[in-house]
């Protein structure tokens, strides 16, 4: 077991903490000046470390770098550490000088170039905004019809969004803030960076799992996820396609839906199981384990705990714990986040829960996801999946949820043989 840091290396700790303490005064606090004052502090620390109660640590989320300190910070102050551990460790011995005051000439020259570029981009943005406003006022006949005008405006808007990102993409401060997890998702640049980061690994992994586990032909024909969906049960996070113990998935999941385009929108959440054994037809059916609609989601409000959703306003089917009968192959549980697009008959995209409940009835079984999304201006923007199989806890889960017909065990059908073809008698004479 590792000894607590304050007992092993007081001198090192003192050295480590020196710049962090001096970080308040920005003006390139060289540690030479402060050594005299730090020395007596170090002696104080060494004497106190001999006595049983350790000194209270001043834990800074910017500089904690051991697991123990991170845990302490979270426990005592309820604050998560910022950035990577490697970065925090590096910060401990840095002077924390802001970029504007870095004493490197080349760096400052480069910053000037970037600044100039940004200014030119900002000018272009104002120019583009002006042009868009002008084109909106021009009647459609003058610019070659309604369709042409709309197309032109869409293209201009797209270019404007591109410019907004280009203005900030080279800013070192923005990059730093994003890497520290301090990015403001209301600004297009941070949404862009978050999107890039998601697409670099997590989305690839998700797409791989979708194709490996045949979610795409089995539940829906096509999906192009544009929102990051992460899923967990209680404290436990679930990776896409992971097997989840039935006791863990007994409670409703908590979702985190990060959209990367601006504005608030309403989404529906459906949890589908396409692997329900259907013995009569000798095939697999599907079941809806959860369905909720009209859930507001925006780039900044991402957390959606399914257990906290309002019963009257959102939920069509409450959470049914995933379960698998003994002997049956594993069940895939696909969680879909479906965007409710704005239409002519609902300006904000809301769906009437009551009518939906009536039309759905109580038929979770044989719920067709394709039918649900067809012709309703609903399109899936994100998904997550996990798997469930029969385990020690399934019986308890099923009994607590009052599910009927769980008491079934599946065994392999005895393979039939081809009828024996008797050779003609002439051969045996």
């Amino acid at each position, binding site marked *: *077991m590792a000894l607590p840091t304050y007992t092993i290396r007081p001198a090192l700790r003192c050295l480590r903490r020196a710049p962090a303490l001096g970080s308040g005064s920005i003006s390139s606090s060289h540690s030479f000046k402060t050594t005299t004052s730090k020395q007596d502090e170090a002696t104080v620390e060494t004497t106190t470390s001999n006595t049983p109660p350790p000194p209270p640590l001043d834990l800074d989320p910017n500089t904690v770098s051991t697991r123990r300190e991170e845990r302490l910070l979270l426990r005592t102050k309820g604050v998560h550490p910022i950035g990577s551990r490697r970065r925090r460790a590096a910060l401990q011995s840095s002077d924390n000088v802001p970029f504007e005051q870095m004493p490197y000439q080349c760096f400052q020259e480069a910053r000037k170039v970037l600044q100039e570029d940004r200014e030119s981009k900002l000018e272009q943005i104002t120019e583009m905004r002006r042009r868009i406003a002008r084109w909106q006022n021009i009647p459609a006949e003058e610019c070659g019809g309604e369709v042409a005008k709309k197309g032109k405006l869409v293209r201009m808007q797209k270019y404007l969004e591109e410019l907004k990102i280009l203005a900030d993409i080279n800013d070192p401060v923005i990059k730093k803030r994003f890497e520290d997890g301090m990015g403001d998702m209301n600004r297009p640049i941070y949404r862009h960076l978050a999107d890039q980061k998601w697409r670099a690994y997590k989305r690839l992994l998700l797409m791989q799992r979708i194709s490996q586990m*045949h979610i*795409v*032909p*089995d*539940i829906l*024909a*096509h999906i192009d996820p544009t929102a990051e969906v992460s899923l967990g049960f*209680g*404290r*436990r996070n679930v990776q896409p396609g992971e097997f989840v*113990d039935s*006791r*863990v998935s*007994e*409670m409703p999941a908590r979702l985190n839906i990060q959209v990367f385009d601006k504005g608030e929108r309403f989404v529906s959440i459906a949890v589908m199981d396409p692997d329900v*054994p*259907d*013995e009569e037809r*000798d*095939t*697999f059916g599907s079941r809806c384990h959860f369905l909720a609609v009209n859930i507001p989601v925006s780039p900044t409000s991402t957390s959606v705990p399914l257990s906290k959703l309002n019963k009257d306003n959102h939920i069509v089917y409450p959470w049914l714990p995933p379960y698998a*009968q*003994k*002997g*049956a192959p594993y069940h895939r549980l696909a969680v879909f986040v479906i965007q409710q697009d704005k239409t002519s008959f609902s300006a904000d995209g809301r769906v009437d829960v009551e009518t939906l409940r009536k039309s759905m009835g109580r038929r979770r079984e044989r719920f067709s996801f394709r039918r649900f999304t067809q012709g309703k201006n609903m399109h899936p923007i994100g998904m997550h999946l996990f798997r469930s199989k029969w*385990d*020690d*806890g399934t*019986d*308890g889960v099923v009994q607590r949820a009052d599910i009927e017909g769980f*008491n*079934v*065990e*599946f*065994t*392999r*059908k005895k*393979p*039939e*043989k*081809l009828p024996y073809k008797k050779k003609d008698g002439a051969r045996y004479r």
Partner: protein
Amino acid sequence: MHPPRIRIPPLATTCRSCLSLRSRPSRFLPLTQHRPASHASQGRANKAAPGPGKRLGAKKGASELVVPGNIIFRQRGTHWFPGENCGMGRDHTIFAKEKGYVTFYKDPAAHPKRKYIGVVFQRGEKLPVPRNAPRRRRLGLVGRERVLSTIATAEGMEAGGLVESQGTMRQEGMKTRSKVPALRKVELRPGYQYRESNWSIGRAAERANVRVREYKRGDRFLAWRKLNARKARNAERRALGSRKKKGSSK
């Protein structure tokens, strides 16, 4: 590449020379001559006999009924690939994995050049299925009511490190974990074994109150003592062994 020509002199001159040079009979040519082969007489060159036929080819025709395990095609290499509900054996034999009807098809979306053999559930069904249509799957299982004794009740709850508290399942923490787990009931395990689970067996020492020195990484003093003990042991054994050897040789 012609064989060397041997010029045989006419008989009269030979006789003459014989008569004239009686003292040197070695000038006669040998009666048996060697002529090297211009063409290999054995092996590959003369079309070796083909050997027994390997009985390759289709064993089942299109839309013929097959059951799991039936061989559909025998081949050297992969002239045909296993498609839907088919498998490929060690020697590239294509066999059926489901009961159904044989189909030979191409799937340009999967691979532009490969030929596939598949099995469909209904006679006349076409392969490949459209790319975005749900897969046709067969359950192939029979359900029967479970015998009540095999249904675990609430006691299965402790497994997996989960405990119930305040109405929800929580991960068992270091605080809530009991120090020494009680002996669990023996249960029927895979392979018809009535025994306790492996993790429970693994904690038997704790149950028996066996104390083990806690492992400390980098405890050089302990390592040094152990090393010395081992050296002493080895020296002792060596001394014993050498004595034995001496005794056996005498």
